[in-house]
């Protein structure tokens, strides 16, 4: 019964989306307002239908309705309600359903907000979004039906994938990420609209910039949350493995970040619009590519969903989006041409050009590395791996250069920079950077990469600080305020700029934390019988006993945990565990972390001997890891500050907040 409703909602959603696309295209060509309205409303209806379908699925999951195959595969009677709920996006078909809901949600938001504005662009945007929605509804109707029934109905289900029910972050990371991915369809649709109608001016650019920044915030938060979740759950002590699925999230983030920056130049004049179109299209194609990579099983990764026919469909979708974007861009290339004169060599404009080069170069490198195994096998039949060592080495120069630019960009003036400007603004920060690197070396940082990172962060941080100080001093002089109030005043009057500065500061903090933690981590493996101790870098762990019992929250799960006393800079009792889930052959490690400002003490249980109570523990001391999450939060905070409505706004819906940037 439920399955029928769900499936019907999906099929009707497909029909409605196709109608919306047709109506919107007709409305766009003929200017008929009624048709445009019909198209918009059809999108709202599609959103409602996908909400119904999601509601059906959630109801089935919470009610453990095993007549639906998806529920039988990903849920069990003992699954706690929270994990039942988030199973909506835990596996393939459900994640596509959730994706469709978010996509149609974003689309409805956009169309509702501009129901009386931008009459030339909106119908085409609606058509574009409706086509994308129709694609996803079609995937759910045919190869990836979430509501397939199964008979006979089993009494007990498989339960969620063990790795995905270990940590509540599973409720946070995918929704944030999907909000980012789906939201990035909007700038693409707007760009398609602008290319078709040849309205490639400020109207389009302002819209696209605003409607990229909000999904970008979600994407950033989703990536950071994913790294944090990976660190807390997977037990290998790291947070980024350059896994193909992680890369799939990073790639659109890189091009979207490049776009956000180059849009600032494009808004000021006629330059960089070709870049804008290319970056927006590439971002959207990369979101679809990422979906393809994770759902087709083409590249194995920790995230891989099982292989299915969906892969071929998503490949078609990726290529389709690429073709549409490329054809439109090439067709309208003459309209996109800029002023023709290059900017001054030492100016903010060239800094942005360099910024574009670095981000796209890095995105190309990461994409190349991710697809290289496929390429090599297609060419030579040879199986290869491209892993973290390659990615680390290739991406490090780009990140270092971007760190440099993060301070230099804001400090360079528009137009051309004079000697005095350069001397006033850059010499002191350069000296501070060198000083900070030397201090870092003295304090014990080993290796070129951390010292370079720290030095560049010091340089860029001082530059940013100098910008703020200069502006605050100027305002304070003219308004007579104290410097703090002056600084706040300047910031709230230039939210975009100062939000950007804050986001850059967040990036610097995260970069330093990553460099120091990557190079300064120490780890050890210890085999201990109860009562024995081992020490590492000032910490001493003593294994007390091995406890084996079912989990209180979910009695199907059998947990073996070691009770370990920790002494040292942080003290307490940790209980790293291995959990045996009925649907997973390998035991899932549940590491434990003690976090302090300076370092994390991280402990995993790798193996145990039930007869003697002996355990094999892995100890990690990871410096500054907490600052990675802090840095990510600051980035999100800065971006949110940048788009936050100023005093002029009235209390309003999310759409209002998005548009008043």
């Amino acid at each position, binding site marked *: 019964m439920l399955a029928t409703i769900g499936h019907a909602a999906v099929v009707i959603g497909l029909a409605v989306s196709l109608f919306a696309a047709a109506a919107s295209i007709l409305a766009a060509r003929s200017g008929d307002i009624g048709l445009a309205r019909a198209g918009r409303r059809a999108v709202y209806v599609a959103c409602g239908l996908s909400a119904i379908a999601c509601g059906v699925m959630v109801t089935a999951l919470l009610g453990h309705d095993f007549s639906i195959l998806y529920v039988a595969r990903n849920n069990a009677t003992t699954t706690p309600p929270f994990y039942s709920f988030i199973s909506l996006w835990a596996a393939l078909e459900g994640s596509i359903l959730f994706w469709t809901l978010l996509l149609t949600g974003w689309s409805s938001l956009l169309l509702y907000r501009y129901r009386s504005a931008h009459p030339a662009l909106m119908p085409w945007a609606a058509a574009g979004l409706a086509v994308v929605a129709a694609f996803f509804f079609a995937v759910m109707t045919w190869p990836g039906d979430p509501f397939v029934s199964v008979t006979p109905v089993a009494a007990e289900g498989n339960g969620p994938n063990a790795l995905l029910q270990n940590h509540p972050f599973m409720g946070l990371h995918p929704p944030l990420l999907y909000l980012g991915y789906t939201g990035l369809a909007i700038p693409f649709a707007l760009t398609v609209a602008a290319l078709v109608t040849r309205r490639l001016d400020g109207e389009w650019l302002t819209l696209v910039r605003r409607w990229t920044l909000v999904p970008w915030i979600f994407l950033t938060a989703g990536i950071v949350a994913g790294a944090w979740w990976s660190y807390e759950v997977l037990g290998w002590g790291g947070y980024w493995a350059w896994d193909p699925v992680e890369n799939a999230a990073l790639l659109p983030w890189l091009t979207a970040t490049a776009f956000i920056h180059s849009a600032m130049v494009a808004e000021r004049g006629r330059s960089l619009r070709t870049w804008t179109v290319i970056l927006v299209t590439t971002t959207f194609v990369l979101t679809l590519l990422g979906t393809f990579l994770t759902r087709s099983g083409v590249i194995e990764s920790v995230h891989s969903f099982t292989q299915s026919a969906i892969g071929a469909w998503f*490949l078609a979708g990726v290529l389709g989006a690429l073709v549409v974007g490329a054809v439109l861009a090439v067709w309208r290339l003459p309209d996109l041409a800029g002023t023709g004169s290059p900017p001054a060599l030492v100016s903010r404009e060239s800094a942005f050009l360099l910024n574009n080069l670095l981000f796209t170069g890095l995105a190309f490198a990461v994409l190349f590395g991710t697809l290289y195994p496929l390429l090599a096998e297609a060419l030579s039949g040879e199986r290869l791996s491209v892993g973290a060592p390659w990615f680390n080495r290739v991406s490090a120069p780009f990140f270092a250069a971007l760190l440099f630019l993060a301070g230099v960009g804001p400090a360079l003036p528009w137009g051309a920079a004079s000697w005095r400007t350069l001397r006033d603004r850059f010499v002191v920060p350069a000296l501070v950077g060198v000083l900070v690197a030397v201090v870092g070396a003295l304090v014990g940082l080993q290796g070129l990469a951390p010292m370079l990172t720290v030095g560049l962060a010091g340089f860029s941080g001082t530059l940013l600080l100098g910008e703020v100080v200069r502006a605050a001093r100027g305002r304070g002089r003219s308004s007579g305020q104290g410097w703090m109030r002056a600084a706040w005043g300047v910031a709230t009057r230039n939210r975009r700029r100062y939000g950007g500065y804050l986001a850059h500061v967040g990036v610097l903090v995260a970069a330093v934390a990553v460099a120091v933690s990557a190079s300064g981590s120490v780890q050890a493996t210890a085999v201990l019988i109860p009562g024995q101790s081992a020490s590492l870098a000032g910490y001493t762990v003593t294994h007390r006993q091995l406890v084996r019992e079912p989990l209180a929250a979910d009695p199907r799960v059998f947990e073996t945990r070691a009770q370990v006393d920790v002494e040292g800079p942080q003290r307490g009792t940790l209980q790293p565990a291995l959990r045996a889930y009925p649907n997973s*052959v390998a035991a899932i490690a549940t590491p434990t972390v003690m976090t302090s400002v300076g370092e994390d003490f991280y402990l995993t249980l790798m193996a145990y001997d039930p007869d003697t109570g002996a355990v094999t523990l892995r100890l990690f001391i990871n410096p500054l890891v907490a600052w990675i999450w802090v840095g990510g939060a600051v980035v999100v905070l800065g971006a949110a500050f940048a788009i936050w409505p100023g005093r002029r706004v009235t209390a309003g819906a999310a759409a209002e907040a998005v548009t008043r940037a």
Partner: protein
Amino acid sequence: MRAARWLLIPLLVIPLGWVLFMGLGRDPAEIPSPLIGKPMPAFQLTTLDGDSLSSTDLAGRPAVINFWASWCIPACVDEHPVLMDAAARFAQEVQLVGILYDDTPQDALDFLVRYGDGGWPHIDDASGELALAFGVLGPPETFFVDADGIVRAKHYGPLTDESMARNLALIGVGP
């Protein structure tokens, strides 16, 4: 010259499409083995029955080396009847050897009790050294060795009657 810019589109789309399309058919876990055509790694270990079994004991007859585990469900369960059938039919012509992958003898014996013991010896590769020597990715994985001790084929994943027959033919065993 203006029309030339349209070339960008196929230039962009075709290579990407081709690479991704080629990737669709592949099983990311099917790695070709460099051992093919080379002698089987030498070993000498104890079977679950307590006897000693070495690679030299297998010389002179084709052998099927099957890496399995009691926890590898459902793949090892699915291929077990195929192995039993082959053991029964070609008992004289081929020597079947089972090697435990990251498993305990007790669990392995329970598995055999439950799913049937075909009578071929099983070795406990406790340290995992033999799995590494053969280049095993994970159970089930089966190597087909001819009478001269040269590895002729590797099959990753559960065996089917068809793949068993095909690979047995490669080592000279068949109807």
